[in-house]
């Protein structure tokens, strides 16, 4: 494994970049921005039309990998083949649904000399929506009341314990606010059809939502964190713009979560601040959010820290992030040649030649 951080060869997953983007493009941009970085960046993605595959100046090479539903064996086989031709030192998975597969194949990847910096299976379970309320009780963190629902019948009496309106959530993704039994039943069936059982019902708390991108050191401490307030939302409620804030209460809650779970690796902490100034933990996403590039923009480059930790290196202490750093997304039409699509669609890979441009002497 390479020991010079600036020459690391880093593979990054999830290059889908629609109006609800995966984090991969953001992670690649943060790594590309790391001071002195002259290593190699490799993109791993699932679909030949994932927009990040066609972004010039990001990944030196991109490869398709099997969908998580095909299981860890297929993923390992593909990663071995890629690694044999285009070696990498670390891989940074960025999608919830692929984490278990990567944990499963971690020993084999380690044999190849490939490192990762991920939470353990137990930590993933602790922060799951199903167990979040228990985590709150154990850690003293305020968490909205919640119930795990496996049948539609359970919804008929649930409002006695969790009054309307409440959220109906899928285990991995999706949240629908409902105001009545009819709406709850419709949301239940739609959620089951899309994400399967069980479904989580969570109390709604009124207030302002904040998000924190954070990295835990696996020993109860915090490698770094940047709290953000969304300033622009899409019609799906996803952040399209945001600004870094300096609310100490958000960082205190993040530290409490790290301490309670001894979290290792990246995560996104979703927090609701109520009108009385109370903080409530809504959700923990066990990977970088799609807005993580803002951490690099704010001078607190968390993907770069994680890449080094995954390689077994000790990153330099992160500088404090710059409060007031903003991000605003933009939708651009990228131009690609049909031959690029051909390479991705037929061979599942696109290796870009160096541009040939030399630095002026």
């Amino acid at each position, binding site marked *: 494994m390479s020991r010079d951080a600036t020459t690391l060869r880093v593979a990054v997953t999830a290059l889908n970049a629609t109006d609800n983007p995966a984090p991969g493009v953001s992670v690649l941009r943060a790594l590309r921005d790391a001071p002195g970085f002259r290593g190699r960046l490799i993109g791993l993605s699932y679909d030949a039309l994932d927009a990040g595959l066609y972004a010039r100046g990001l990944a030196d090479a991109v490869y398709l990998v099997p969908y998580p539903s095909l299981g860890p064996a297929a993923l390992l086989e593909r990663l071995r083949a890629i690694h044999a031709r285009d070696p990498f030192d670390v891989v940074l998975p960025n999608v919830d649904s692929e984490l278990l597969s990567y944990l499963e194949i971690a020993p084999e990847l380690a044999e190849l000399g490939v490192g990762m910096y991920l939470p353990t299976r137990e930590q993933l379970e602790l922060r799951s929506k199903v167990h979040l309320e228990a985590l709150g009780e154990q850690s003293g963190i305020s968490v909205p009341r919640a119930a795990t629902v496996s049948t539609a019948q359970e919804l008929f009496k649930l409002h006695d314990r969790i009054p309307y309106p409440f959220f109906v959530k899928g285990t991995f993704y999706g949240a629908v606010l409902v105001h009545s039994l009819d709406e709850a039943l419709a949301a239940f069936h739609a959620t089951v059809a899309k994400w399967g059982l069980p479904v989580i019902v969570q109390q709604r708390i009124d207030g302002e939502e904040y998000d924190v991108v954070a990295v835990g050191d696996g020993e109860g401490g915090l490698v770094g964190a940047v709290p953000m307030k969304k300033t622009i939302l899409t019609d799906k409620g996803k952040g399209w713009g945001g600004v870094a804030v*300096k*609310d100490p209460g958000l960082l205190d809650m993040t530290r409490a979560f790290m301490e309670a779970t001894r979290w290792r690796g990246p995560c996104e902490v979703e927090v609701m601040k109520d009108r009385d100034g109370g903080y409530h933990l809504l959700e923990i996403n066990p990977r970088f959010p799609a807005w993580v590039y803002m951490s690099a923009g704010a001078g607190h480059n968390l993907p770069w820290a994680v890449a080094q930790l995954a390689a077994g290196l000790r990153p330099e202490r992160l500088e404090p992030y710059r409060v007031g750093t903003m991000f605003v997304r933009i939708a651009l039409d990228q131009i690609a040649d049909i031959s690029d699509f051909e390479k991705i669609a037929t061979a599942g890979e696109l290796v870009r030649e160096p541009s040939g441009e030399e630095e002026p002497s």
Partner: protein
Amino acid sequence: MNDIDRLRDLALSETGFLFDPYSGATFSLNPTAVTILRALRGSADRVAVLETLKREFDVQSADLEHDLDEFIALLRREGLVSREFGLS
């Protein structure tokens, strides 16, 4: 953190653009509001704040007091000071 320190932490530009680093909220202030905010950051004493404002504006005391009270109510409403905030 007390309310005056909280007000001192707000990022206020020359043009009257105000950024609250705690909530991420932004505001546009007119020149009168900028002057009142600057005065409030210097003192929580009502008489002292009004004296500062009198030096800046050639208007009746009653108008200044009305503007000051209205601005403080706005600060409370936007959560930039606590609900209990008032001048001594």
